């Protein structure tokens, strides 16, 4: 039985990278969005520039479930290399759209799926003389065909094309022509639309579709970052690029052309973090963006930042580790190496955004926190958040908001004779006051160092001032708990002693999982952790539950390790659910794991899926 589904299916495009399919696929996805139907697109790409397989998947979900689903209802198989595998991965009853110009293909089709062959290559060869054009327009042709098959309004696609090529009018017409070639051919060839299809609705609202890296880079602009030092590395490169692009638009003086920002592509990650630390020390809001290997290289400087108490921000867009690992896959596996970055006793602050919305919010907030807490702040994205487009609430900014520069002793304070000790805990919150270099001719100068020193920043090798300082740093860490974004609690319909703790990009899948569990009669309260160290609400949640599942996208239960280290409580309460194969975690996966391990249940309801 062919799948019947309106506004609730997954379509997957199998392409070759460097072939120009990316923009056609995006066009397809945005068309559905414009019809008011929520979508969650995801890219699966290789660590290479041209010629290897790449996939693009769009989950269409009127109900608004935006996590990955781990199944394919419609396959657009454009890559001969992976054709067999692609065909094999289609859900029974699903659909296969393929280029039937090549002979031999039909024999490899499964009987339990619907084959939709269109001689794309032939059509394009007929329509286009130029080779490159054939290649490029082929992508638009299949978008046209899919519009017919899935009942996407062709006018919507047309207007998106028009918007895309605004100012390049000459490009609009041929693209629209290609679109219609596909559209008409499909209508003549197939029984359109299919039983799986899109239907206009109004579930998108004013939401936007955006990548987390763009959001975080924009957040840094709004948060007042002026110095960005970075070194290219997938999947963080587009974050620095987004900062640059937005600065170029929003921070260049109209009259003089002067830039109110400075971006340096450093020679490596060590230099990048060194520059961010130097700028932070000197009173600018500074950041770097990197991924796992960069975090490893930055360790020494991160320890300096912790101990010398330098405000700075590190965006870690996590990918599959260890080592070079799976550079184009997602994971949450840098939690420990960031939380404990560097040798010696160090503990760092992590912000854990769940998607582009919080990437923007935390991307700005991180700079306030860095200056308030005078320490490096990590914003932990991952490849899924950073490089995939997600539907999220529009960005908002309160124009009355002021930057929180933290405890900076001004030239006037110094002139007035306020006592200044760089590491003096004047306020009892563990946070000392600082001065910005150059502030005052006679007062407030101090020496910053990574060696131990007393409260007045004087070098010392004595144990007591060292311990005094290390204990103050713990007080500061406790102060952080009170000002970091709190964990988000969602209670089940009725009281339950079972809880789930999760964080970051797991959120979308978790939302859906809770719903599925509820339908199955399993009640869980859930807590989404948004920062480390944890606030009291996390302790209260753990106290209030007998069984707590900790959901993470890594092998080693890294967040659970932090929870156990931070709370003096029964470790037997924690049961890990671990997902780390590099694909985004799915709701089914979470449900299966939880169901299997619930004591009262024996047979899991949720069937196995490859994920």
């Amino acid at each position, binding site marked *: 039985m062919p799948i019947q589904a309106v506004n609730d299916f997954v379509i997957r495009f199998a392409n070759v990278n460097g072939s120009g399919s990316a923009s056609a696929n995006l066009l397809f996805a945005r068309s559905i*969005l414009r019809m008011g139907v929520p979508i969650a697109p995801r890219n699966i790409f290789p660590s290479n520039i041209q010629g290897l397989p790449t996939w693009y998947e769009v989950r269409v979900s009127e109900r608004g479930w935006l996590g990955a689903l781990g199944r394919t209802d419609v396959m657009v198989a454009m890559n001969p290399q992976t054709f067999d595998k692609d065909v094999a991965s289609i859900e029974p009853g699903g659909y296969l759209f393929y280029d039937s110009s090549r002979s031999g293909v039909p024999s490899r089709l499964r009987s339990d799926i619907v084959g939709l062959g269109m001689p794309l290559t032939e059509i394009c060869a007929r329509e286009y003389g130029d080779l490159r054009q054939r290649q490029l327009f082929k992508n638009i042709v299949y978008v046209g065909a899919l519009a017919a098959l899935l009942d996407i309004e062709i006018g919507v696609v047309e207007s998106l094309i028009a918007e895309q090529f605004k100012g390049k009018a000459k490009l609009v017409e041929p693209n629209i022509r290609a679109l219609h070639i596909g559209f008409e051919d499909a209508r003549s060839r197939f029984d359109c639309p299919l039983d799986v299809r899109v239907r206009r609705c109004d579930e998108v609202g*004013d*939401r*936007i*579709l*955006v990548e987390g890296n763009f959001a975080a880079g*924009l957040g840094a*602009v709004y*948060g*007042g970052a*002026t*110095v960005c*030092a970075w070194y290219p590395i997938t999947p963080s490169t587009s974050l620095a690029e987004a900062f640059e692009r937005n600065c170029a638009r*929003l*921070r260049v*003086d109209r009259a*003089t*052309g*002067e*830039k*109110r*920002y400075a971006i*340096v592509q450093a*020679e*490596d990650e060590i*230099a*990048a973090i*060194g*520059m*961010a*630390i*130097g*700028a*932070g*020390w*000197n009173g*600018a809001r*500074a950041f770097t963006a990197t991924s796992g290997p960069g975090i490893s290289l930055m360790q*020494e*400087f991160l320890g*300096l930042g912790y101990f010398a108490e330098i405000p700075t921000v590190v965006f870690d867009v996590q990918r599959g580790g260890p080592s070079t690992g799976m550079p184009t896959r997602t994971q949450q596996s840098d939690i420990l190496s960031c939380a404990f970055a560097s040798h010696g006793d160090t503990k760092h602050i992590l912000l854990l955004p769940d998607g582009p919305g919080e990437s923007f919010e935390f991307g700005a907030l991180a700079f306030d926190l860095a200056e308030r807490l005078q320490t490096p702040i990590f914003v932990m994205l991952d490849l899924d958040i950073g490089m995939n487009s997600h539907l999220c609430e*529009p*960005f*908002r*900014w*309160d*124009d009355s908001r002021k*930057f929180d520069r933290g405890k900076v002793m001004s030239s006037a304070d110094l002139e007035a004779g306020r006592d200044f000790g760089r590491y003096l805990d004047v306020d009892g919150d563990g946070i000392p006051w600082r*001065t910005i*270099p*150059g502030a*005052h*001719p*006679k007062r407030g*100068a101090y*020496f*910053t*160092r*990574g*060696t131990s020193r007393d409260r007045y920043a004087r070098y010392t090798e004595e144990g007591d001032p060292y311990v005094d300082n290390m204990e103050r740093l713990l007080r500061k860490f406790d102060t952080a708990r009170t000002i970091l974004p709190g964990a988000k609690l969602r209670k089940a319909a009725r009281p339950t002693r079972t809880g789930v703790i999760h964080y970051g990009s797991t959120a979308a899948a978790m939302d859906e999982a809770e719903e599925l569990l509820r339908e199955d009669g399993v009640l869980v309260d859930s807590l989404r952790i948004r920062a480390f160290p944890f606030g009291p609400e996390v302790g209260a949640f753990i106290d209030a539950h007998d069984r707590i599942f900790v959901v993470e996208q890594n092998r080693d239960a890294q967040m659970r390790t932090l929870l156990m280290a931070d709370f003096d409580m029964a470790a037997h309460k924690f049961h890990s659910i671990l997902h780390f194969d590099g694909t985004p975690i799915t709701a089914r996966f979470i449900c299966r794991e939880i169901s299997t391990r619930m004591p009262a249940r024996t047979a899991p309801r949720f069937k196995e899926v490859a994920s």
Partner: protein
Amino acid sequence: MTYLAKPKFHHPAIEVNALGLTHRDYEGSVSTLCAGCGHDSISAAIIRACFELDLQPHRIAKLSGIGCSSKTPTYMLGQSHGFNSVHGRMPSVLTGASLANRGLLYLGVSGDGDTASIGLGQFAHAMRRGVDMTYITENNGVYGLTKGQFSATSDTGSKSKKGVENLDAPIDLVAMALQLGATFVARGFSGDKGQLVPLIKAAFEHRGAAFIDVVSPCVAFNNHEGSTKSFDYVREHNIALNSLDFITGRRPIEIDAQAGVSETVTLHDGSAIRLHRLAEDYDWRDRSAASAMLERHRGEGNLVTGLIYMNEEPVDLHQRLGTSQTPLNAMSEVDLCPGSKALEAINQSLR
């Protein structure tokens, strides 16, 4: 040695500069280096240079890495903010600091281990970026603080205190800086203050990447017979190319009673340097000539000191980036935050 204060650079106690500051206002904490360490003489020269240039101490930021040499910023300019960062990474920290506030003067102090071994990459890239700074390497050919291992500037054949010969090729930081695009390149000797102070002054006045390699014998570990970084060896093999006088309107020009031809070079701020050619007919404006000259003297086992190269029109990192004249660290939300309206336009483009 004793714990008593090191004898300070000699100066009349009452001497004040244009800012009304005394020499003491440019000093720092008491040095804890070995008695006789070359590095202390360099500190004294830096102090002297800042004093004579009438620099406001609090407008200088002094940064360093790790090592005996990198400790010295504590021993000078007590009214300047300082940053002892991590080993070999002063250049990046300084670059960041400079990006944050183009209004301060940046002094980077490093050692040969700090610069040529662990820090070679950062040194090179700071030079090629044209970071506006005075970068001084206190070069003793060894790791002083870890007790005398060879550093990468140690000459082939130079002997350690235990008599072991260095077999690797040395890194000539001056040749490297030159090749990497530094726009002011000089070499000094801790034992020749007369030459060193004006070099440091000229470097401070240079608006670009200024590098000075200062040979600075380590009396504890590298001042013995067989070492090519000992006081004796350096004195014997020192070819001083030129000597400088630094001329500000206020101070009379003191003509050195030395041989050679003189030339006066006016700097961007109206001050000038008078250069006395000593060694040979050598054009410090010509980078190729400088390279060739260094290479030639290297072959002959000589150590060339003096101003080696200067580009009179440097383009520094801020100019390349087009950064605003207002220091970035002085901007507030008004300057930096585009506000909700701009954000709504962005939202709109993402639908």
